């Protein structure tokens, strides 16, 4: 099966694949992770807040995002973001938004829902007595959250957050549906130009496998190292 396998096409296009494609994928993954964890934590705090309206709002958002396929969410934001942009700056016509920006907004908004559920579990894993102790010491809500609850919640949830990030890394390949040039997009452009689909797609699969497997092994080791033994 490797008799007419053209290894040269991979070598020829490696620069384009990694410099353009993989950079897009990794930048998108990194920024979406940071944005997603930030907004996810806010959403989690809203979901757990005693104000029913806030909790309901955050809960509906999370459930809405979690019941939609990512592909549909990518389409939504791809068409919606130009209109929202126009609405914010008061322009008459939809503004032009680059494909990277559109993807970034999509993934931050989408992953926030998933990170929210992780952070909610993390916050709920902290014994309630610690919150009371914080209030008893005279700390207010943001001090209790910021200095006592969240640092421990993050620490407990680091392995889960990172596992979700590996899923996010794999999910970014779906930006193919709006023809963005991520790693898969770049490979598919080369594949269709040179008619080398077998070589390019097996190579893409191999690269994704090595990176995801390596990362998940790292997370597993980290998990064993930072686990708190009680």
């Amino acid at each position, binding site marked *: 099966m490797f008799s007419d396998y053209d290894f040269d096409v991979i070598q020829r296009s490696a620069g384009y694949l990694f410099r353009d494609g993989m950079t897009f994928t990794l930048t998108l993954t990194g920024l979406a992770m940071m944005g997603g964890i930030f907004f996810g934590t806010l959403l989690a705090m809203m979901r757990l807040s005693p104000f029913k309206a806030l909790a309901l709002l955050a809960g509906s958002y999370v459930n809405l995002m979690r019941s939609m396929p*990512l592909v549909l969410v990518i389409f939504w934001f791809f068409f919606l973001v130009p209109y929202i942009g*126009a609405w914010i700056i008061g322009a008459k016509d*939809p503004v032009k938004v680059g494909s990277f920006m559109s993807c970034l907004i999509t993934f931050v908004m989408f992953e926030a829902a998933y990170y929210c559920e992780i952070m909610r579990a993390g916050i709920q894993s902290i014994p309630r007595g610690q919150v009371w102790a914080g209030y008893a010491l005279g700390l207010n809500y943001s001090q209790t959250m910021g200095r006592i609850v969240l640092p421990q919640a993050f620490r407990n949830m680091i392995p889960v957050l990172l596992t*979700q990030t590996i899923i996010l890394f794999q999910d970014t390949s779906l930006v193919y*549906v709006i023809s963005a040039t991520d790693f898969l997009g770049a490979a598919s452009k080369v594949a269709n130009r040179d008619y080398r689909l077998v070589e390019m797609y097996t190579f893409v*699969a191999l690269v994704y496998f090595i990176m995801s497997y390596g990362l998940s092994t790292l997370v597993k080791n980290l998990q064993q190292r930072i686990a708190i033994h009680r």
Partner: protein
Amino acid sequence: MNYNWNWGIFLAAEPGGTGTYLKYLVVGLGWTLVTALAAWVIALAIGSVVGTLRTTPMPWVVRLGNAYVEIFRNVPLIVQMFLWFFVMPELLPKALGDWVKQVPPPWGSYIPAVLCLGLYTSVRVAEQVKAGINSLSRGQGMAGTALGLTLGQTYRFVLLPMAFRIVLPPLTSEFMNVIKNSSVALTIGLLELTGRARAMQEFSFKVFEAFAAATVIYLLTNLVVVFAMRALERKVRVPGMISASSSAGAH
């Protein structure tokens, strides 16, 4: 927002001549469900076997099962779709490969989509089944052995009947994931719900109406699945156990 809403579009005829846009989307939901259900059958069958094998005391079987899980878990779904659709026919013997490429639409993309989704989901099912079996106390397996049951009998009569009832809630969320993940099949040309919403947007330029309709249909489908599975869970729940709720995570 400067956008001309036209909800009447759903009653307009779609250019393919099969009826209204509304019908077009509903048929899309049908394809989504048919794809997801067929993939779910494959996933349950393979996933249960692999998950069970990974808990046996045979090291090389466990290692083989782990390898299977790692391979399908660490490659993105869309890349696996492309492997099944573009790469697989090229690797088959020439005559068979040519035949596969000539399967008429929609089956030409339906079959690879089902195989791909089925195997992709099977590793998630395998993980759940394994976790379910491991959550039983070790004494149960030992009791089986002490009663003189063989390993196979212990699994058949003691461990699996309990484990499957325990993993039902997490399997529900995996089933919803299959429904959602089937939308990735649009990249290999299967016109399921998301694919049809996208096509409707291209034909009619009514972007937000099309996607809003698809969103509502997905939400309703989710609701139906959740309610049906809750009823099933109540029925098969192990008495005296706090039913394990599904955890947050993957999609």
